[in-house]
């Protein structure tokens, strides 16, 4: 299957356009923009709405709503006098569970929540009630982790894309967020609403100018600066742009449209549409690490002796058991390399030569496979990224060589094994040229039927010490 993102939207989180659009002309225009976005989403044929909400903070990784039909009456903590918001949503619990599994596969901490009475946040409620009032399109909602950095947020998006592609969905991504989020700290008459300060207004207009030009990745790269300039610190950050940009392949040539920009009790509220169709303006450089797999601070519960990534559980969820590499004569074993799937060392030194056991892309500690596995737990083939897998193989080789006191430039000979030569040779060859090819070892590439774990590439290396 070949799913894709068919559209993206930025929408505000305040309840005013939902509850009292008639009280202020600007709130009414935001409501009209929500209505326009609703119609465009319907027309796009989307079969999934994905909400990333800044008003659902989480601490323990990300949380994904998985109650198929959450129902409640929400009252805003600040604007309770505007009224109550009854809701009953159509949540795609199956997608939520698959996304959660994909998160784990990419090294993220996450969980699904499916509890009666779970308090769905105001940003999600406003978005879903206005963009999907008849619940015709199933939705998922993900929290905004207060500690997440760009890497974690990017990987969260990539895991989501894994599932979209795998399930063939036509998805729309929505970030529920403010532009500037500084509200008036006193009560105001609705007719007096305006953006809190000229500075906030100018920043908002610059950000919206970028978005209207389709420069989403530029906004994502400016996210930290924007947060410092026009955001109330700690309340929520501008990280949804990291997620949205990663959902769109970190592009700058989307087709953007600002449907409305107005004040909501002083904060900047905008409804923005981002169409994946290229403007033809040419993409810009993506200058941050394109991380595939999250390897950040995740072992804090282990009080003793841990590095950033080597103390994860050893037992894989599926596949062969992992072994402690034996300490036989001449053996070289690295804690920074993935555990073997049998009783053999990572490498063995004989004289001044080092013979490496077959090296795959599995990650040390977690056993996850960058670029995704080639088949799911049921053995069904799934989409994967051969280039990401090949890069991970090279990284693992480098770690083992380093442990042995050798290095990449001392590699003499490589034998590579691909499980699908037709599909993967070009991608594998490209990464080879960028990495090992520079050092000039001899190479033999073989097509084989299978490898012990669901990976597409493995390399056997001989190097000098």
């Amino acid at each position: 299957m070949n799913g894709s993102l068919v559209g993206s939207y930025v929408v505000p989180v305040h309840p005013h356009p939902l509850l009292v659009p008639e009280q202020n002309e600007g709130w009414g225009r935001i409501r009209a923009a929500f209505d326009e976005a609703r119609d465009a989403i319907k027309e796009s044929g989307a079969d999934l709405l994905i909400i990333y909400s800044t008003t659902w903070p989480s601490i323990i990784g990300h949380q994904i709503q998985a109650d198929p039909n959450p129902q409640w009456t929400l009252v805003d903590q600040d604007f309770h006098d505007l009224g109550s918001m009854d809701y009953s949503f159509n949540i795609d619990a199956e997608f939520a569970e698959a996304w959660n599994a994909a998160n784990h596969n990419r090294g993220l901490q996450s969980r699904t929540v499916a509890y009666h009475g779970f308090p769905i946040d105001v940003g999600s409620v406003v978005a879903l009630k206005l963009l999907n009032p008849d619940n015709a399109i199933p939705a998922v909602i993900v929290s905004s982790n207060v500690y997440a950095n760009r890497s974690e947020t990017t990987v969260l998006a990539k895991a989501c894309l894994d599932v979209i592609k795998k399930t063939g969905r036509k998805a729309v991504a929505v970030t529920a967020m403010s532009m500037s989020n500084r509200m008036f700290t006193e009560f105001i008459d609705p007719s007096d609403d305006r953006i809190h300060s000229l500075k906030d207004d100018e920043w908002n207009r610059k950000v919206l100018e970028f978005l209207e030009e389709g420069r989403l990745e530029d906004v994502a790269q400016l996210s930290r600066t924007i947060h410092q300039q026009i955001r109330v610190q700690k309340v929520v950050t501008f990280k949804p742009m990291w997620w949205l940009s990663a959902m769109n392949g970190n592009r700058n040539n989307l087709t953007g449209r600002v449907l409305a920009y107005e004040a909501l009790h002083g904060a900047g509220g905008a409804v923005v549409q981002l169409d994946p169709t290229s403007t033809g303006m040419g993409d810009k450089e993506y200058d941050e690490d394109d991380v595939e797999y999250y390897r950040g601070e995740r072992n804090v519960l282990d009080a003793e002796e841990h590095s950033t990534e080597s103390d994860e559980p050893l037992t894989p969820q599926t596949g062969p058991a992992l072994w402690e590499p034996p300490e036989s004569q001449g053996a070289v074993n690295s804690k920074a390399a993935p555990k073997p799937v049998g009783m053999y060392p990572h490498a063995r030194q004989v004289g001044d030569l080092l013979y490496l056991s077959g090296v795959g892309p599995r990650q040390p500690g977690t056993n996850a496979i960058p670029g995704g596995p080639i088949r799911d737990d049921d053995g069904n083939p799934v989409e994967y990224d051969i280039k990401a897998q090949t890069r991970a193989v090279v990284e693992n080789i480098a770690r083992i060589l380093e442990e042995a006191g050798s290095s990449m430039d001392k590699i003499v000979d490589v034998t590579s094994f691909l499980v699908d030569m037709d599909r993967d040779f070009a991608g594998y060859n490209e990464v080879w040229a960028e990495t090992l090819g520079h050092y000039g070892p001899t190479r033999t590439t073989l097509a084989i039927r299978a490898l012990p774990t669901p990976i597409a590439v493995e390399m056997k290396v001989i190097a000098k010490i």
Partner: protein
Amino acid sequence: MTELAPTLMAKGSIVAGCLAPHPPHLVYAENPPQNEPTSEGGWEQLRWGYERLRESLSNIDHDVLVLLSPHWQTYVGTHFLGIPHFEGLSVDPVFPNLFRYNYDMNIDVELSQAIHDKAKGSGLAVKMMENPDFRVDYGTITTGHMVNPAFDKPLVVISSNRSTHYYSVEVMQEMMMELGRVTREAIEESGKKAVILASNSLSHRHFTTESEVPEDMSKEHIASHAMHLWDMRIIDYMRTGQAQRILDEMPEFTEQAIAESDGGGLTWLLSTLSVPNYPAILHGYGTIIGTGNAIVEWPCYAHEGDAQ
């Protein structure tokens, strides 16, 4: 008659002030009938601390609990629950696996309104919350449960204005000192005996992972040594009657310990107690997913007139 009541009544008073943090883990660990999830215990040091606090408060006559919760976060002014009765299901949005609590509580609307009116008169932005569909925040419920699980005394519940993050700790302190002052005045004029509860932890850096068994105490410890040092420094000030030093160091403490005092509860508490210069009683200290939590009581009833 109503208008004359304050002058005819005995003067009200604050009989105790407490730092009473609200981690839902403590309710989860107690397995009360109101909470749906069940546990094998955990966080005993803190739960035993709450036992000691409950025992202490049971010996002090009081009519009402006045509570400020950092998990009713308001950005536009300070709000007060303004309806006599609330009941419903509270599910913690961060730890729904631990806290799904059926609550049933009464509000002292008269006292709430009195504090609200005085705060408004002194220039603070305030609002009464009178929407019957409103769901009470889990911080209020957790602290309310741990202090008085029967919920047989009415509460005044005050929101946490986020002025620290809109402005600075200094601005927050100015506002909370004033809110504390008018809270004390309103209580005194009400003729009621009140216990004050600031529902916040101290250092507040969480772990970002959860152990498979949440109550696995082999995994529990303070997030970092720096957090421990800050917690002990603040507790030492509490135990030695140096509340003013806590206020003086609040900006550094709040920033460096990422402390939940950012919500204003601790400053408000110390202000209601007229910045006490007598020792507080430490009933317990412990960590919860890395954050520092202290259960502390200022026994005001024994020190009337001692404050600065």
